[in-house]
Every structure is written in C-alpha cells, then in structure tokens.
C-alpha cells in the first residue's frame, strides 16, 4: 500500500468508495421492493402452503391437520376433479384458439395496408374494456333467444345452442368471448412480425417462394420466440380465469363452468374454509408451475433463437 503513488491511491479510494456506495445505495433503492417482495409475495406463498395443512375458518385459530385437506381433495371431493377437468378443457381449447386468432389478425395487420391504426384499434379495444362490463355484455350476446349470436346464426340457417344455459355449450361460450379479447397477444405478435428482417422475404421472393411457403419457412420459424412467450403468458392467465365465470354463470349450469379459481373463491370466501381453499391454491400453483416447465423444457426443440 505504501508504495502506491498518490494518483493510484486516489484511483483506488475512488473505486473502493464507489463500490461501497453502490452497495449501500443499491440496497437502499431496492428496499421498497425487498419489503414488498417479502410481505406480499414471499410470506403469502409460504403461508398458503402452511394453511393448506390446516383447518381454518378465520374466526378460531388455524388447526394443524396435515394432509387431510389433500386427502379430501383427491379422494372425497368429486367437485374438485370436475373443476380440474373443466380447467384443463378450458385452457386446452382457449389457449391454442386464442393464439391462432391473435396470430391471424397480426398477420393481416402486418401487410402493407392503408388504415392500419384503425384496424389495430378495433381489434385491440375489447382487450382493455373492463372485464365486468364485457362479461355482462356477452351474457346478453349469448342469450339463446334474443341474443346477437344466435340471431346471426339463424340468418345463415343454423339453430344456435343454449350457450350459457347448456352444460355442453357453456364452456365454448366463455371461450368464444375470450377469443374476442386477444388484442394484447395480437400486438405482441405484430411486434414480433415487424422484427423479422425484410431481406429474408425478398430473397425468398426471388427464389419463387409463394406467400404460403414464405409463411411456413420464414415467418413461422422466426416467430417462434414470440409464440413461446405468448404461449406461456396465455396459459398462465387461462388458469387464473375467474371474473367471467363469477359473473356469467356462477360456475353453472351443473358446475360445467366451475373452474379451479372460482371453486377456490367459493371454498375460501363463501364457506370460509381457508385451509381447504389454500390447498386448492397450492394445486393451482403446481398446475401453473408444471405447465410452464413443460413448455420451457420442450422449447429448445421448437423455438428458434437467432445468434446475435
């Protein structure tokens, strides 16, 4: 140390001081989120697991019953299995359908067209309207007798089903409404499309590739990172579906639209079975987790990342 010249010394203290100040200010600036993360994320996740091993009615203190909630869920509660199969049906249909519709709209908007902002607005607006208002509107649209949809179907000679009043058509009804709200996904697709280098298409055109081949061999592979991102996001949000069901059907008819989250809400906030609801929340988390892992682990096989 003694052999350091004054200039080196100064540099050394400057560097050291900036390291210390990075550390102090780093923690200081991150403090709100460190606290928020612990209080509103870490602690609740830990306690949801804890409560899932308890019987808890909010009024009296929680009672440790270990695996009883899960035993009841798996072996004694047919409604639980109904909600799981409903949720898988709903997610399995609504996610691919939503992605296809969003991609189709994005592809149309990506053409050199006049009035793109107008079309974009029309397709995007349903995604930002309050979901309560959308859900109420669609109850009216799906009204079997006087609703818009069955009237349009009647015009082309199709007798529309009972939609929300029918156990077969209630889920498709809610899924149909979901495909009307894919604007956010569409905008992300559009951004992904606009990122694809134009030269690729020019070269393909010189080589005589038609529009379909260009889509198959350029657009689709180059878009896989965006498809992957949208797939993860829409899967997670499909699992969370609550408001539509709560407002449109209340889970009926005959529990045909009772998804996992509405059931969780029922158990927790209608019957005040907080422990049981917590075990449902844990299952919900595990389902989302497993699905995300599956998508992630297969991604290396179908997602194309450009080396930059």
């Amino acid at each position, binding site marked *: 140390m003694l052999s350091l010249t004054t200039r080196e010394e100064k540099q050394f203290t400057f560097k050291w001081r900036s390291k210390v100040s990075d550390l102090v200010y780093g923690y200081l*600036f991150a403090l709100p989120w460190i606290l928020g993360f612990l209080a509103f994320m870490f602690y609740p996740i830990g306690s949801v697991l804890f409560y899932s091993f308890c019987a808890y009615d909010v009024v009296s203190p929680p009672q440790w019953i270990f695996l009883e909630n899960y035993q009841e869920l798996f072996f004694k509660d047919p409604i639980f299995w109904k909600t799981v199969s409903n949720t898988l049906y709903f997610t399995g249909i609504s996610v691919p359908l939503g992605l296809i519709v969003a991609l189709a709209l994005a592809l149309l908007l990506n053409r050199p067209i006049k009035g793109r902002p107008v079309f974009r607005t029309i397709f995007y607006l349903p995604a930002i*309207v309050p979901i309560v208002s959308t859900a109420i509107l669609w109850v*009216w649209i799906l009204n079997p007798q006087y609703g818009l949809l069955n009237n349009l179907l009647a015009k082309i000679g199709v007798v529309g089903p009972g939609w929300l009043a029918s156990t077969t058509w209630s889920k498709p009804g809610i899924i149909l409404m979901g495909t009307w709200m894919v604007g956010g996904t569409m905008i992300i697709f559009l951004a992904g499309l606009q990122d694809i280098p134009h030269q690729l298409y020019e070269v393909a055109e010189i080589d005589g590739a038609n529009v379909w081949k260009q889509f198959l061999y350029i657009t689709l592979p180059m878009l896989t990172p965006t498809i992957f991102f949208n797939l993860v996001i829409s899967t997670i949000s499909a699992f969370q579906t609550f408001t539509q069901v709560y407002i449109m059907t209340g889970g009926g008819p005959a529990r045909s639209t009772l998804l996992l989250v509405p059931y969780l809400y029922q158990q*927790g906030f209608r019957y005040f079975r907080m422990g049981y609801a917590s075990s449902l929340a844990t299952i919900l988390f595990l389902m*989302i987790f497993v699905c995300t892992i599956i998508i992630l682990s297969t991604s290396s096989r179908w997602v194309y990342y450009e080396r930059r």
Partner: protein
Amino acid sequence: MPTVYLSINVRKRILDILVYLLLALGSIIYILPFLWQVSTSLKIPSQLFVFPPKWIPNPVAWENYPRGLRMVPFGRYFWNSTIVTSLSVIGRLVSCPIVAYSFARLKWPGRDFFFVATLATLMIPFQVTMIPLFITFRKLGWIDTFKPLIIPCFFGSAFFIFLLRQFFLTIPEELSDAAKIDGCSHFGIFWRIMLPLTKPALAVVAIFEFLWTWNDFIGPLIFLNSEEKYTVAIGLQQFFGAHGADWGALMATSTVVTFPVILLFFFTQRYFIEGITLTGIKA
C-alpha cells in the same frame, strides 16, 4: 420476363384484395358486440325482446342512462374507483423506478439472484396468494378499506420493475459515468439524468396501472364489503345481480363505466402499443 412480372403483380393484387376482405370481415365481427351494446343501451324494454332484433332503437331511449346511473349510487362508485386508481398509479410511479434503477445500474451482492426471484413471481397469480393476504389484512383491520388495494402499490411490482429495468439498460452507461465523475450522487444520477429519459416508460407504467386497477374485479370483491366502498367494477356486477333483465339500463351503465378506459386509450394509444411491444420483445 414481362409475363412473369405480370403474374406476380396479379397475384399480389389478389392477395391484397383478400387481405382487405378479411380485415373488413374481422373488423365487423370485432365491432358488432360494441354496436350491440350501444344499441341495447338506447332501447325501451318492449324493443329488447323481439325477434329478429332491431339495430336502430325506435324510440331512442336516452333516459336509460340517467335511470341506470340513479338506480345504484354510481357517482359514489366512480369517486371510489378514481381514488383507488389514482393512488395506485402514484404508488407504482414512486416505488418502481428507483428499484428498477438499483437493479439496472448498481452492483450489490445477491442482486442477480433477487432479480431472477422477482421474475419468477411473475408466474404466480394473485389468486394463489389472495387467501394469506386476506387473512393478514384482516388481522391488520384493513378489510373494507381501500388500504389493501392501495398500500401494496407503494412497494413496487415485479412486472413494472422488470419493464423499467429493461428500459434503463438501453440508456448508455457513459451518461451516468460522466455525471459520477462530476460528483453527482446516485440519487442525483437517477433523478436528474435517468428519470427524465424514462418518461415514455413511466407513461406505460401509469397507463397500465390505471387500466388494471380500474378494471380489477377480484381484488375489490375480496377486500371490500360495504356498498359505499364499492368500485365501479363491483358496483356494476352488483347492479347486474339485482336488475339482471333491465338490459337497457345495464348496457347504458356498462357503456359509462367503459368510457374512461376508451378515452384513455385514444389519448395515449402510442404508449399502449409501445408498452406491450417493450415487454413482449424483451422477454
């Protein structure tokens, strides 16, 4: 050669026409529900239940609007939603940028691990954590107040922190280095250099927070009980539960509740698209 050119041109023409046809068809499908809503909101009851339905209301029942809004205290709900929404937006704007700056520019032990943990929480929806949160807020005596809806907003948000961090990373480091050498403190760099450059991203945060809070249903449903505390989303749902067949008044109030969102969209369209694009591409 000319024949080849011609056929390519013709094919392009056909494709163009097809694209416009599909766009027109899609737009009609996407806009019809809105038209149906507005049309219904102006109908008298006897015109609602007719087959086939009429698109143009006759007579035009403007009175559905004042009538619907007076059936339940919507003025109160609007005021509640305004308070909750504006305080939530303020909370996010106060807390998220500085945390994002810390993640983007300051080096501290555990930062990268914590950042990954933050991203991982994006996978965990509110529906998973709402039961413990409800229990905690109940113990604190916060149920049936706006506190559970507002106070967490002042402690950051994984999504917005991620978004702002990505934005900060695009600002050249030389800028803050130069300021550091000139003796500017970390807070000075953040406040005087980074923040002014971040205005577009801050707008994105404010817009999305506004939208999500205004539209939020499950949060107010769980945390609020008494009618005078309802937000518009809950108020509308209650109205639907009580007057489910009065479609004229229902559609009228629905339209009014939707109006602030549509208005916001038309004035801030650019930021909307940018915001979604920013989060989508960087992921």
